[in-house]
Structure formats: structure tokens, C-alpha cells
């Protein structure tokens, strides 16, 4: 009986000294900024912090503030703070993304024919310094510049995303697309190229070895020269026989040599566009 009293007293003392009554976490915390957690009670305890990218364990004194380093709160998300002495108490809090620091900007396509509706699209996502998606609404300005012409529009982010879709311009050449938010900007370029050929016309003449046929300079309907490498297919019909030759456009013109000694009907096509028919007489 005499020995049991000091043991009980010590146990009660431990109970009183190491009981955490409460744990208070930050109401709002920002990624990459320091924060603190307050505890009540007294005595030694173990503190755990579990969150995205962190799982730490340290010894703390109850009743003192627990200091959370900026490094521990880099990632936005939910964090759980647990303080264990005689028993464990916990509380959770959210860390939100910091100010936008960079813009991820996806623009499609990299090459587009002119005068196409809804042909160019861009998606912009703001991220903070620690690569957290900034989900609070931000206004992103999209500016599209081709030659001297420029258009811009502002789009508010929704859950961290804003986007646009627009028609391609009338002239071939580079289209600069810039997404900006405050003093951050990201630039992309889209190459606008001529659309399908328009009024494809061919001419030809008989040579010693056959027929030399070539197109007139090939342009799209807006007058942009169709890019080199675009294929023009020449089809020659001699009697009941047909033969085809594919020729790439070089410096606006596609040329082909067709072997045929009799009268021939020659036509040309590029993509879905048909050209005129050309009749060439037989070799004299």
C-alpha cells in the first residue's frame, strides 16, 4: 500500500503533464510560406506532419508553437497534423497554391492552313513557384499577331484552366500567340500556310521523249503560294490506257514528263482540287 501511492502519483503527474488539450492549425496557408501550429497542455510529445510530399516526425513541447518550415509546405493540398503524447490529437488544414509564377501554354496545331474556322486552339494553365496549379480565378490575356494585324482576348481561368479557339488568318506566315498573366508571359508560334490550291491550271508541250506538262504558279484562293513539296498528280489518258505521275511543287510550279507518243488527255489534281484538262496531239 505504501509503495502504490508514489506510483499512482507519478502516473497522474504524467497524465496531467503530457496531455494535449488542443491543436490549432492555420486557417489558411500558402504553398512555400512558413506557418505555425499551436498546442495546449504541457510536457513532451511527438509531432507528425503528413501531406503531399512530406511525412515528418519530431519531438515537441506541448504548449509551445510548432513551426512549419516553408520547405515543408511546398505542395498545395491537405495536410494532417498529429500530436501524440498520452494519446494522439489531430487536425487537418489546406495549403493553397501561391501566386502564379509560370504559364503552361499548349497551342495547336503547329502548322495550319489559312482561312480555316476554329483551327487554332490554346490552353493556358497558371502554376505557382512550386508547380502547384493556381485554381483561384485569374484573367489570362491571349494575343495573336500575324504580320501587322493583332487581336487579343481575355479569358478567366476556371479551376486553373483558360482556353481559346479561333480561325486562322488570311495570309501565310508565322502567327505569334502569347498568353500573359500580370508580368508572366509565354509565347508560341503557329505557321500559317496556304490552303488548298485554287484554279489549278496546267499547260504542256510535246518533246522528243514525250510530253512535258507543268502547272501555272499554284496559289490558294486567297492568293498565297502553295508551299513547296505539295503533291500534284498528273494523269495521262492515251487510248484506253491511263498513267499517273506525282510531282511536288517547286517554286510554285509542279512539272512532270509523261511518256506517250499518241494523242493524250492530261489532267491534274492536288488534294481534292481538280485542274483543267489538256489535250496534246500525237507525235508527227
Amino acid at each position, binding site marked *: 500500500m505504501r509503495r502504490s501511492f508514489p506510483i499512482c502519483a507519478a502516473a497522474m503527474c504524467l497524465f496531467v503533464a503530457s496531455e494535449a488539450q488542443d491543436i490549432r492549425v492555420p486557417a489558411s496557408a500558402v504553398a512555400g510560406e512558413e506557418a505555425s501550429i499551436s498546442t495546449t497542455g504541457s510536457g513532451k510529445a511527438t509531432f507528425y506532419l503528413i501531406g*503531399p*510530399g512530406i*511525412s*515528418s516526425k519530431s519531438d515537441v513541447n506541448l504548449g509551445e508553437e510548432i513551426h512549419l518550415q516553408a520547405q515543408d509546405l511546398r505542395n498545395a493540398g491537405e495536410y494532417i497534423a498529429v500530436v501524440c503524447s498520452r494519446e494522439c490529437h489531430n487536425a487537418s488544414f489546406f495549403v493553397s497554391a501561391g501566386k502564379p509564377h509560370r504559364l503552361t501554354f499548349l497551342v495547336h496545331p503547329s502548322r495550319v492552313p489559312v482561312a480555316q474556322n476554329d483551327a487554332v*486552339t490554346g*490552353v493556358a494553365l497558371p502554376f505557382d513557384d512550386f*508547380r502547384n*496549379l493556381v485554381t483561384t480565378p485569374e484573367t489570362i490575356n491571349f494575343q495573336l499577331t500575324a504580320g501587322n494585324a493583332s487581336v487579343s482576348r481575355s479569358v478567366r481561368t476556371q479551376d486553373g484552366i483558360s482556353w481559346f*479557339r479561333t480561325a486562322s488568318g488570311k495570309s501565310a506566315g508565322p502567327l505569334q500567340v502569347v498568353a500573359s498573366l500580370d508580368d508572366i508571359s509565354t509565347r508560341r508560334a503557329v505557321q500559317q500556310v496556304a490552303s488548298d490550291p485554287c484554279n489549278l491550271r496546267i499547260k504542256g508541250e510535246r518533246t522528243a521523249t514525250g510530253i512535258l506538262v507543268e502547272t501555272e504558279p499554284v496559289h490558294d484562293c486567297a492568293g498565297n503560294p502553295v508551299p513547296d513539296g505539295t503533291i500534284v498528280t498528273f494523269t495521262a489518258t492515251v487510248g484506253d490506257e491511263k498513267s499517273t505521275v506525282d510531282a511536288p511543287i517547286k517554286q510554285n510550279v509542279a512539272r512532270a514528263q509523261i511518256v506517250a507518243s499518241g494523242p493524250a488527255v492530261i489532267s491534274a489534281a492536288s488534294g481534292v482540287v481538280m485542274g483543267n484538262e489538256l489535250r496534246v496531239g500525237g507525235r508527227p
Partner: protein
Amino acid sequence: MNRILSDRCIAPVAAVLAFSLASVLFSYAADPAVQVQLDVKEASPRAVENLTERGILRDYRFAWTSMAQALEFNTLDPLEGPFAGDARQWLRETVISQQRSGLSQRYAAQSHKLEAVFYAPEGDVMELRDTAEYDLQISGGGKIIHDEHVVLHFIVLMTPGADRWVIRQMQAVPRF
């Protein structure tokens, strides 16, 4: 004699098989498969194709199964396929940090209500909102220090990889 021998052999084998089956059934009962419901009706500006919907469902479920494995057993391997970019980075950091602190997290009875809210015009990124519900146990040094039924909101970015959709960003938010 042979009959007796074979009977004697069969009995322990059957017992082992029965035990294994019971263990398997028990483990499934304790940790049923991750439940995912996906709603793509509100996805815009691009509509989500049927095949894509099935792929997202499959890959999102796999990602959470893998994440749960990684955080329970403190191993990095499960994170390699289903996660990419920043999501993989912070998950790796969590696992490495758990290895140091001796903690582990157990996700059980997972259920996810997933809603596709943005699908890029060119199909190269999808944003989803997940209302996730699960039992979370955090253990350290052989004892459970935290045990809670959790309902959390996540904003998730997924992008198509070579053969699957991968999670690039996964951020818990207080509310949508």
C-alpha cells in the same frame, strides 16, 4: 498403402488451399477494389469519346490502387506507370519521406466520384474533379496514430501517354 499416403498428402494441401482462399477472401473483404464513377456529361469543349471514358476510368482506378500500395508499403515502383510530372514527384517525395520517418498510410474502402470538367480541343489534357471517400489509417512504429473516414475534393489533370492516361497533377482543395 498408396491410398493412405495420398490421403495423408491431400489433407494438408487442402488445408493450405482453404487457408489461402480464406486469406484472399478476407483481404478482398478488408480492402475491396477501388470504386470509381465517372461522369463526362459536362466535359467541354471537346466531348469525351466512349473509348476515352473507359480508358480514364481504368487508369484512374489503377492510379489510386498504385498510390495506395506505394504509401502503404513505402515503395516507389507502383508510382512509375500511372503518374507523371509533378504528381509523381510529390508522391515519390512522400514515400521517401515516409521511409525516413517510419510512417505509412493505408487507404481502404475507396470510392471516387469523378467528373470530367474540361477536355482540351485537341484531346491532350483533361481536367477532372474527384470527390474521394476512403478510410485513412496512418501508422508509425507499429501503432496507428490517425484513423479517419475522409471525404476530400481533388482537382486532377490527366494527359494521354503512349498506352494509357496518366495523372500529372492531383491537388486536394477545400471545395469545388
